[in-house]
């Protein structure tokens, strides 16, 4: 049960912009307002727009539940592993083992107002990405499960 051609075309036009905006919120989480949870929710809203515009069968042909739950599990595992690496390096759980180290995401930052550099903040961008993937998979798969329940009763 898909919607009219106008809705489908509008959803196809809007989807890339929503995805790019959500990814921007995720990756700039340590510089501007936002973060993993918010960006993941925005990307999931884009997927929900797609699910509302197209029929259930054409959605599940390209986007399976197992890939979404796999993304959710992968995000949570990446989050925990990033936090646990600090234990192996002799720090505390959730210690920031990359900050101010000079490696990737390790550029030191001076105190005060500055324009911001993407290559800073240590493990925070990695955790933002992990939480973003997790929230995206979780919120999308909730709606996909509900659509599957409605789909069986109506069809």
């Amino acid at each position: 049960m898909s919607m009219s051609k106008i809705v489908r075309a509008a959803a196809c036009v809007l989807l890339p912009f929503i995805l790019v905006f959500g990814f921007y919120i995720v990756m700039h989480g340590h510089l501007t307002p936002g973060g993993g949870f918010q960006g993941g929710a925005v990307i999931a809203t884009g997927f929900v727009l797609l699910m509302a515009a197209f029929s259930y069968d054409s959605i599940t042909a390209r986007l399976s539940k197992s890939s979404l739950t796999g993304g959710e599990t992968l995000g949570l595992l990446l989050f925990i592993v990033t936090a646990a690496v600090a234990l192996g390096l002799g720090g505390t759980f959730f210690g920031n083992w990359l900050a101010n180290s000079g490696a990737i995401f390790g550029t030191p930052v001076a105190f005060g107002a500055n324009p911001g550099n993407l290559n800073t903040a240590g493990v925070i961008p990695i955790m933002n990405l992990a939480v973003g993937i997790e929230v995206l998979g979780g919120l999308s798969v909730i709606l996909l499960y509900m659509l599957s329940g409605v789909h069986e009763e109506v069809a």
Partner: protein
Amino acid sequence: MRVIITAVVVIVLSLAVLSAAAGLDFGSPVHTDMDDYFTGFGQVLTGGNNIVTDVVFDFRGFDTLGEATVLFTAVTGVGLAFRKRKEDEDYEYE
């Protein structure tokens, strides 16, 4: 009669909440030691310009782990409620 009781309860409760909130100044907490620490050292210690994300993902990372677990559990519950049942599987609501 029920309308009168409802109105009395609503008025008493809102008066209680408002009288408790009337003595507080907005945005001036009593203990500011941790706030001063976060705003003073957070940017240099973690390297992120957004203090909110620094607190959520670094200083209070364990809370974020709990939040992620809550979302995971919610998705598991929805998947259980909407799973595909076999033809001969009998089940009851309630």
